[in-house]
């Protein structure tokens, strides 16, 4: 298994290299100029050109890329033009809020989706099933930003139970940390919850028709044990896949929700960096997100072994 993990991690190298080339080319094809953004509306051309020269922006693309990649190979992903710190430091600072939000949103989704999915599968065509259909349609139809505005209006502006926006770290106390994350996590969770719940339902229904389930029931195994031990366990693989994908998407930065709730996460950093053409930071975040995706997929693959002993990772 160690060899498998190592192989997967090595396969990451060409992926990241190709990503870096593509991102670099895209960044340099889009117009816009960090010097112009920094100097603002109305700056004169001579000053802009002087600042561009000093920032190294007037070099051709290839030397700039070679410069960057040789730094990156030594662990130096460059300096932000605007943040006054290295790209790695900026990503490290903004990853915390994004991770926290993603984990909480995922937990909320799982806590609602799994019981709902199981209930719907158990009572196919019944009330629980209909409720699940309604819930999942609604979850997929409501845009997160719209839901977030309603939630803010109710829980922050009217009832004043939770803050409108912002982020507090764990050091500020668990409650302060959680209360800043509840509304954004609730806004993010319906979509994922809906997808996971539908997957739980369909995957369980498929397993329920298998003959070993009938055998178990015929042996007189309790219904509870049939559902949780035989059906859910065997239905886990697609559920894990969907959950992993959803978690990856969340880690990639829920840019809109982070903007609405003013959470200093990766999504917000990426949006700001694109707006002001902070090239090194854009490049760093995109590569970091690519790495996270691969890492999450690797963890998902490892979890397959846990869920199903028949799976062998070679």
């Amino acid at each position, binding site marked *: 298994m160690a060899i498998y993990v190592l192989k997967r991690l090595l396969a990451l190298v060409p992926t990241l290299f190709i990503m870096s080339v593509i991102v670099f080319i895209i960044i340099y094809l889009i*117009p*816009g*100029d960090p010097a*112009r*953004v*920094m*100097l*603002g*509306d*109305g*700056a*004169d051309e001579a*000053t802009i050109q*002087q600042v561009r020269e*000093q*920032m190294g922006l007037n070099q051709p693309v290839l030397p700039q890329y070679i410069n960057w990649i040789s730094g990156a190979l030594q662990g130096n992903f460059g300096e932000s033009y*605007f*943040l*006054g710190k290295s790209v790695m430091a900026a990503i*490290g*600072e*903004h*990853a*915390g*809020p994004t*991770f*926290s939000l*993603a984990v909480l949103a995922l937990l909320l989704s799982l806590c609602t989706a799994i019981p709902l999915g199981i209930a719907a599968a158990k009572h196919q065509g019944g009330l629980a099933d209909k409720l699940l259909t309604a819930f999942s349609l609604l979850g997929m139809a409501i845009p997160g930003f719209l839901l977030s*505005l309603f939630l*803010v*209006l109710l829980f*922050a*502006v009217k009832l*004043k139970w939770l*803050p*409108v*926006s*912002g*982020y*507090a*770290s*764990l*050091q*500020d106390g668990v409650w*302060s940390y959680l209360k*800043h994350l509840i509304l954004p996590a609730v806004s993010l969770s319906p979509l994922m919850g809906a997808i996971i719940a539908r997957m739980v339902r369909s995957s369980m229904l498929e397993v329920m028709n298998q003959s070993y389930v009938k055998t178990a029931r015929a042996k007189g195994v309790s219904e509870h044990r049939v559902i949780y031990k035989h059906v859910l366990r065997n239905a886990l693989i697609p559920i894990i896949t969907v959950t992993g994908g959803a978690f990856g998407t969340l880690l990639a930065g829920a840019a809109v929700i982070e*903007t*609405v*709730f*003013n*959470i*200093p996460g990766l999504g917000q950093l990426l949006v700001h960096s694109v*707006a*002001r053409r902070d090239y090194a930071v854009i490049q760093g975040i995109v590569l970091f997100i690519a790495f996270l995706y691969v890492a999450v997929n690797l*963890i998902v693959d*490892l*979890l397959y*072994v*846990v*869920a199903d002993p028949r799976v062998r990772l070679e």
Partner: protein
Amino acid sequence: MNHHSSKWTIAFLIFVLLLTGCSSNAANGTNNSNISSPGPTDAASADANVVDANEGKELATELKFPLDQSIPTLDPHLSLGGSNSTVVLNVFEGLFSFNSSYEPVPSLAESYEVSEDGKNYVFHLRQGITFHNGKELKAEDAAASLNRWKELAPRAKSSFGESEFEAQDDYTVVLNLNEPKNDTLAQLSHVLNFAAIMPKEVVESAGPDGVKEYIGTGPFKLVEWKADQYIHVSKFENYQSPDGESDGFAGKREALVNDIYFTLALDNATRFSSFLAGDFDYVDVSIDNLPLVENDDSIELVKDLSTDFNLIFNKKSPLFSDIAYRQAVAALVNAEEILLGITSTPDLYRLNPSYMYEENAKWYSEAGSEAYNQSNPEEAKRLLAEAGYNGEVVRLLTTKDTGSFYNASLMLQAQLEAIGVKTQLDIYDYATMLTKRADATAWDIYLGPFIVPSTPSQLLYLNPSYGFAEDAKLAELLKKATAALTDEEIKEANDELQAYVWEYLGNVKIGDTYRYKAIRSNLQGVTTLYGIPNLSNTKVYKKS
């Protein structure tokens, strides 16, 4: 059974690792407490019980103030952004500041003398002023700062040219100009590309992307700048205010709170919700949100004169390099319709043919105003036919990122299309738009808001770098208006310049716009100039 439970244990361990990874990341990322929410609610409880003698109400020691634009740099000499000035003007001071009539009033300068020919200025600094780092302000600091500012601020560069500021002794700075400049003090007072005085060492160690430290002499000193999140400034205990009554940014200034957190809240809805929830006591109000605050007794609604709107022609474009096309568009423009499109209500604009606000008595001029707001499509059609218009596409450069650019362009597009002009809206993000606008081949017309300066020499669009206004007569008249010495000479030269601006038609003035600001009654003493709030002299009462 054992085998199975060990696998579940592994699964559980992976999950726990993931979680702890997240929380340790969270911890690493936020070694400053309250990463983006600097004590909105906790602040009040930490306040000392200070009671205002006059009102008998308890004063808060902290103010949380929203910023609606991100700040690329806090270097006062570099940036032209309004958000930047909101912070910078509390931290830094210049030799002069504007009062509410846009007149320069000595600030770090105690007095000044100007020679009869208007070429030689002597500035005497106030003595005993200290920077936030404890160093005393000397003339060498002022000269170093102003010489750097002069190179970085386009308006200063074009005004002062090669002339340098020199320290004559510890408290005297001199400026010897080659020709008289009546706008010298106004240039030193202007709030954008602010002529801030910093220690000489800070100026000398500045890189291309700005100074490394933000040290001024203002009533507040910078404590922390958390990029994209907040800027924390605190009261500077050794601050020495200029004398005189507070007026605009001039006169007595006093820090009446211990801490200000300028908090970035870019999303309009979030910013407004935060105000409603009580996190902010000051916010800009859009027309659709107006009903939520206008009948609330605890909220004061003020109308803030914020920008003037202009249509800028690309004087190098195939069509608009020809003045006949510019005249046709000027004849067509229905300014009122465009202003209504921008503001959605007649309450938030006023028609104004001048490049200056009428509040600026010295430079306001209605010369040439017959060309303003003509709204005459027939005349426009006639002029176009005469110019030989043959269905060429007019490219309107705009952005949806910020402000009212897009709405204004839409309104003009409708007016152009109505007389049979083919148009194309080129919509870009703000950064791309800035780059495109510098490219003479990329656009024909651009509509945008401008912060109105105090003298014509500070008008961006009379400058060749903005829409390529390269006209010898315009430059000559601008020079003449700036060189005039007496009030009569200034008035005459200014009328001549304003009339020529309407004749040359490098731009077409649309009008002045206002913004609504909501101020909760526990926040007192906020004044604004150029739409930029002055937070010294601002008191915050605790909410009951």
